[in-house]
């Protein structure tokens, strides 16, 4: 049974946290709500959990409205950012609490806690108190507490943000593995777009209390619906060039020094760029850097070079606009050096400057 979030609005005092949010997802999907702080993602999760009630709108589980049910009656599970382990109970009782409250027979509780502990590899920790556990272990216990009840929906509120970088990567695949094993529908909240990209079946990018785009990670990355999504997803962030118009069959950015975008063909854009000011966007990975003069290319000067490991991030000043370019770490490049840039036309995004929407048809829809 799928879940349908229908026109949910919520305000806290004068602040509109959610503005008529609608989402629909199917059973077993791993959905991520991602966005900057204050975008409403956590509030939406809390409304799904029943800890907050929406001002308007309804939540449907299949054809059953659940928006009015208390958290306990929804039979869902939630993992909190702080893990919220009961400090006075040992790991076994922490995991068992939900079962005990629901009156599960003791031998059944024992069996299910043992099973969850085995899956999460925390069997040896069952008699410890939360304060005797490391961050990663607490995380597993919190996960175990959610799993053991076999809920129909998992809600995870930034569960990895309190872990150190290395452990975060491990727990990411761990979470993914647990999700594959249990096949429980999961809604995951994070502000980390990389986490969202790596884990989700579909991502809802949120900003200003609205869902900006709800699509697969590939679609979000390859065809961002608007300027916000384009800027939020991807690292290093996308380059934006504003004031772009079509002049004599070329894309030209207005300014003190007008700039002709180094794109070889405009065929792909069709009628979409008919009128109005545009913002062009291109990811640093989709710009080619030439160190020898290139007639097609946009001339500029290398300002700064940062080694990222297997790649280098090069900032090039082209006519007063600084564009970042990712090149292979093996490329030798120094600041102050002249450089020429060409864009991958197939990866160039164009946005309407007024509405901020992507003016190009989605490749999925187009083909």
């Amino acid at each position, binding site marked *: 049974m799928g879940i349908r979030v229908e026109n949910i609005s919520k305000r806290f005092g004068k602040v509109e946290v959610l503005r008529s949010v609608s989402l629909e997802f199917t059973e077993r999907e791993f959905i991520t709500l991602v966005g900057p702080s204050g975008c409403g993602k956590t509030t939406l999760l809390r409304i799904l*959990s*029943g*800890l907050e009630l929406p001002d308007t709108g309804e939540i449907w589980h299949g054809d059953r409205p659940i928006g009015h049910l*208390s*958290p*306990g*009656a929804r*039979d*869902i*599970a*939630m993992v*909190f*950012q*702080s893990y*919220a382990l*009961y*400090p*006075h109970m040992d790991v076994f009782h922490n995991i068992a*609490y*939900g079962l005990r*409250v*629901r009156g599960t027979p003791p031998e059944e509780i024992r069996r299910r806690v043992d099973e969850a502990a085995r899956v999460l590899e925390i069997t040896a920790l069952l008699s410890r108190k939360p304060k005797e556990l490391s961050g990663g272990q607490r995380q597993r216990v919190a996960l175990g*507490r959610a799993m053991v*009840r076999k809920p129909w929906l998992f809600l995870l509120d930034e569960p990895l943000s309190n872990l150190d970088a290395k452990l975060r990567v491990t727990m990411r695949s761990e979470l993914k593995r647990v999700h594959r094993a249990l096949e429980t529908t999961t809604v995951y909240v994070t502000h980390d777009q990389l986490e969202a990209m790596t884990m989700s079946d579909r991502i809802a990018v949120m900003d200003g209390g609205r869902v900006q785009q709800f699509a697969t990670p590939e679609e979000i990355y390859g065809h961002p619906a608007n300027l916000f999504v384009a800027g939020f997803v991807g690292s290093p962030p996308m380059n934006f060039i504003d004031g772009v118009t079509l002049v004599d069959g070329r894309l030209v950015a207005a300014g003190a020094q007008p700039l002709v975008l180094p794109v070889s063909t405009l065929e792909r854009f069709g009628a979409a760029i008919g009128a109005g000011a545009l913002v062009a966007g291109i990811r640093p990975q989709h710009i080619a850097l030439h160190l020898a003069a290139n007639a097609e290319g946009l001339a500029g000067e290398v300002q700064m070079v940062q080694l990222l490991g297997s790649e280098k991030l090069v900032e090039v000043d082209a006519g007063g606009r600084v564009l970042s370019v990712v090149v292979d770490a093996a490329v030798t490049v120094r600041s102050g050096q002249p450089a020429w840039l060409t864009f991958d036309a197939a990866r160039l995004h164009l946005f309407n400057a007024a509405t901020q929407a992507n003016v190009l048809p989605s490749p999925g829809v187009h083909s």
Partner: protein
Amino acid sequence: MTPQARARARRWVGHGAAYVGLIAITLLICFPLMWALSTSLKPKAELSTAPTLVPHAPTLENYRHLITGKSQYFADGSTGYQPTTAPPQYFMQWFGNSVLVSVGSTLISIIISTLAAYSVTRFRYRWRMAVPYFSLLGYMVPSIILVFPLFMVMTRLGLTDSLWSLTLGYVSTTLPFCMWLLWAFFRGIPIELEEAALIDGASRLRVFWEIVLPSALPGIIAAAIFSLIVSWNDYLFARVFMNSVDHYPLTVGVMLFFEGVHVDWGLMMASAVLMTVPMAVLFMMLQRHLVAGFGAGAVKG
């Protein structure tokens, strides 16, 4: 001497000086207690000789006298003197009164302040912040100012000379501070704990009982010890509210050992020791929680 050895020597000297200072202060503080203990163990005859810290012929006569209530000195009537109030007979009664009043007022204070602190930290309503702040203000009023208005209230209620007047009187002084302490403590308990339990399916009452109260236990113990000590040690309220000798708590009752020119120091000191022991034992058993409780309140509050 190598520099390391010198540094070590200096550290030893520093630590030694600190220990000497601390031991001196400890002795200074403990001396009255030790003197009371020593005096309580001396037979009556020894009290009029030159005082020594260690009794020559230690005896538990004084304690037996207090606990059994039998008159040690006047039972044979040989002196022809009969004390009018016969304080030792009432000692156990007073002890019982003190226990009843302290425990009763502490229970009432803790129940009310726990619920109030939970309400103030977890629910939103107008003027809710007035509760902790006004309660602190109430705590700042000295009991000497409160005692006469309270006495008039007790008279109206017809409670004077009843243990209820003391119980309620102590609640009025301990409740504000307990509330303040627990308010600071409850604020430190993350709300996610309760939310997690709600999602686990527990009712609000069950969450309070099984999650919130155990988490707040150190704070509750700290508040309870405070309340017990205040009511156990009170003299003022008991002196003003109570009339009958068999309704006195220990503090006021023991004062009856000062009878005109006759002061029975042995009994007096034995009572002092017996009064101190319950609180001292309680304190030692719970001091770990007490420190945790005040610490948590101070840091997170």
